């Protein structure tokens, strides 16, 4: 028993187990997605996060020791973001003709996303720091956390809300776009990238090269637009 205990202590402390668990959870999530006929609602990010979060809660392993191992996967997010330039370059002939439309739609959509979130939170009488944490939730995590800090939100709460928004947009966004009869792949990509950043872009890339390129573009543009505009608008509205 004490030997088992020692093995457990080793596994809980070393990064190897957390890294392996992350990859296995992802493979399991992909399997589950295929079993659901690759339906948009069957989002593998959601499945893998739920599996691992349940695992942590059940075993009592804290998130920080899990992240010791998982950080090797997390690190690749940086180079992967840079790599979004490649599909964008491949689709440049198509993107170039729609560049103006992309800029206008992303800026309007980004302001709309922040505005609706804030309006709902205000209507439900959420605390001011919760309202401020919700405003930047559509953009990629580091930008969102920086903005939250500047407008009086809680950066860590914003980080969680960014992930929730990304999963919501990736899982339900395609259904909403079908319902709104948005069939143009360029417009679909722009919408998903604006509201659901990288998690939405992961989904868009798996569906169509054009949607993926436009989604990556929208994610980058909205990060820039929201970082510049939101603190200004916030001061005008609440300052």
């Amino acid at each position, binding site marked *: 028993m004490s030997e088992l205990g020692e093995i457990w202590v080793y596994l809980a402390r070393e990064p190897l187990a957390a890294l392996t668990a*992350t*990859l296995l959870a*992802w493979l399991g999530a992909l399997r589950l997605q295929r079993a659901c006929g690759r339906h948009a609602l069957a989002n593998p*990010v959601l499945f*893998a*996060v739920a599996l691992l979060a349940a695992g*942590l*809660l059940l075993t009592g392993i804290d998130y920080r020791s899990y*992240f010791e191992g*998982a*950080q090797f*996967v*997390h690190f*690749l997010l*940086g*180079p992967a973001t*840079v790599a*979004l330039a*490649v599909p*964008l*370059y*491949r689709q*440049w002939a198509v993107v170039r003709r729609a560049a*103006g439309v*992309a800029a*206008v*739609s*992303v800026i*309007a*959509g980004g302001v*709309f*996303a922040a505005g*609706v*979130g804030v309006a*709902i939170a205000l209507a439900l*009488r959420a605390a001011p720091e919760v309202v401020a944490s919700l405003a930047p*939730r559509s953009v990629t995590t580091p930008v969102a956390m920086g*903005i939250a800090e500047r407008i009086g939100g809680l950066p*860590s*709460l914003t*980080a*969680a*809300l960014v*992930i929730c928004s990304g999963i*919501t*947009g990736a899982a*339900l*966004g395609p259904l*909403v*776009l079908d319902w709104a009869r948005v069939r143009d792949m*360029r417009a*679909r990509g722009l*919408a998903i990238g604006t*509201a*659901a950043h990288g*998690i939405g872009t992961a989904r868009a*890339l798996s569906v169509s090269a054009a949607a993926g390129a436009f989604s*990556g573009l929208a994610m980058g543009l909205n*990060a*820039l637009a929201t970082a510049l505009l939101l603190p200004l608008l916030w001061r005008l509205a609440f300052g």
Partner: protein
Amino acid sequence: MIGALAALLACQLAGEVVARALHLPVPGPVIGMVLLFLALLLRGREAPPALDATADGLLGSLGLLFVPAGVGVVLYLPLLARDWAPLSLAVVVGTLSAIAFTGRLAQWLLRRLG
């Protein structure tokens, strides 16, 4: 593949340096994406096959890369539980209405302007 990975990391590093030096509000990797894009544009030919393959490899599993940060939601369960009604409504309704709005607007503009 190592050359391609080095190119990606070099762009990210340059992006981090530019972001800090110019106090830009955008994270290093996003600036790195712009730098790599400009480099490809200046080069003018098709992207090198190794870069193509490495980018496709990374982006093919892009979802996986969000999982470690996503599991971090466990840290905020008490906070999320306390304000679950405004948070879940704002996230779900806000995100989905923004997707419908942006998609409709973009499609309309694309039809109008070609």
